[in-house]
């Protein structure tokens, strides 16, 4: 871990160490707010729908008689949705939740693996402490004050919240200008990799943009046909053969 930008270093037997950036209070709060709204809406939706079905009319009236059907069918599921949302969702989404996914973060164990069910459970039980005295005050102070930006629940469960990998796929090539031979070759290689899956118009346009940015005369590039564009891309990528 470094002081300025905390990272989790993952060692391996190959000797190649990979660092994962640890999410700060902002990303945490963003993810939590999204999840809070989702679980609130889900719980309210269940309560309203089940109440309407139970009462048989447009009424959310609580029964005055001791009817277990109302408790079991209306109240208990709504409470369960609200209270168990984080644990269940994180368990089934491998340390993620819809809010965390939108914030681009996920929970990991300290060896970069998916946390165990027990760890996820402990992490969520400790929300009680983190939420004290109001609005996650203890958790917020802990996240800000700790070097690893962790709340008490993370400390107890041995988990961290890290940013998802910025590049989870070798994406399209046209987004950034080629700022040198190495990057130009990299983007050309990516484009060649996706060449068979792209439509004729899209790959022609992407190839022309890339070749123009790599230093070729735009007028000359505009006059090239698909085969010539492919050949130029292969040259830029340093490849001798056509892509698969």
């Amino acid at each position, binding site marked *: 871990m470094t002081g300025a930008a905390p990272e989790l270093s993952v060692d391996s037997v190959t000797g190649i160490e*990979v660092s994962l950036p640890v999410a700060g209070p902002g990303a945490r709060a963003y993810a939590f707010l999204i999840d809070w709204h989702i679980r609130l809406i889900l719980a309210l939706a269940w309560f309203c729908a089940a109440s309407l079905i139970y009462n048989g009319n447009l009424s959310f009236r609580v029964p005055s008689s001791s009817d277990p059907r109302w408790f079991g069918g209306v109240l208990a599921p709504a409470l369960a949705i609200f209270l168990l949302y984080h644990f269940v969702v994180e368990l089934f989404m491998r340390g993620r939740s819809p809010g965390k996914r939108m914030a681009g973060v996920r929970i990991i164990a300290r*060896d970069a693996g998916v946390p165990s069910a027990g760890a996820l459970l402990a992490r969520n039980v400790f929300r009680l402490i983190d939420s004290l005295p109001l609005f996650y005050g203890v958790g917020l102070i802990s996240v800000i004050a700790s070097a690893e930006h962790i709340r008490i629940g993370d400390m107890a469960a041995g988990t961290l919240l890290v940013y998802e990998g910025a590049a989870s796929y070798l994406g399209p090539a046209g987004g950034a200008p080629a700022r040198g031979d190495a990057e130009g070759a990299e983007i050309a290689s990516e484009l060649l990799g996706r060449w068979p899956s792209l439509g004729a118009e899209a790959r022609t346009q992407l190839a022309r943009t890339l070749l123009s940015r790599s230093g070729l005369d735009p007028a000359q590039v505009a006059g090239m046909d698909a085969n010539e564009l492919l050949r130029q891309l292969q040259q830029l990528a340093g490849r001798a053969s056509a892509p698969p």
Partner: protein
Amino acid sequence: MSGAARRQALIASLLSRAPAWRAADARARRLAHGHTDEAADAAGVADDYRLLAHDLARARTLLPGSRTREYLEGAYLRVHATLHHGAWRPGSALLTLLRDELPATVRWLLPYIAWTALIFLLAAAAGYALVQHYPELIALFAPPELIASVERGQLWTQGLLNIVPSSILSAEILTNNIVVSLVAYCAGFLFGLGTLYILGLNGLMLGAVFAFVAQHGLARQLFTFIMAHGCVELSVMCLSGAAGAAVGEALVRPGVAGRVESFRAAALRSGQLLIVCVVLLIGCGLIEGYISPDPRFALSTRAFIGVSYWLLMVALLSGWLLRGAPPPESHTCRVRRRVS
């Protein structure tokens, strides 16, 4: 060959391996999600790991700020996690938690459970003895409404269902019990002193109230009321207190691992117990809302329900309940079976 040309050739050579990276990444994802049982896939992960490690090292030198390096790091981490942890199956994870980890936690907590139960019983006995000898002390332990009701010769629980519906009563009770249980756990973090306070206070109150109602000839009625839900409710309170005390001791006597690491280990193990306590308390709340205040249930029925529920709790916590469940099958086992 010039330096620039040599570098360009190395980059081209590296980038030409992109299809292999994609294949490795896809294989790791398939295995991690349990979407494949192919022996070839499982065996290929080790090769993928070496391939990605090698190419990542080259990418860091040749393309340090590139998306290729980022992609390789992500793929390498996925393969690393897949190789070291196998597939993630929520069902297996839950089964492992309930069948193996939870009973192990309870065994680890046994001395703490014994101590907290003893503290609770001693406090209850002390509360009983105090109010038995000094009846006016009940004002320290019980609210005025409860005292007035008992002095009128009525338990405060009588007619409860005429005031509040069972559903609302259950919700109120289980919420209160869960909060008390979690507070008993969290209070243990104050170096165990909080657990002592919560359990001692609750024991004193229980003993005092029992002594007070006994003086007014209502002990049997109170016993009848708490029989169905009390066995598990009081046990869960002791369990929560024991879990909190274990964390408290980890803070007081961290051992060689250090305070933070000891706290982490103790909290991780004891925290698992809490969710079971919460589930058990939901059951207690339902019983207390629907059965305990209902005069139609005889004492024998209540005793049967209370003892059965308590035995179910013991079976769950000891691992006996899920002993017959097949062990969660690891991916390696399944692949080996397919190969054979």
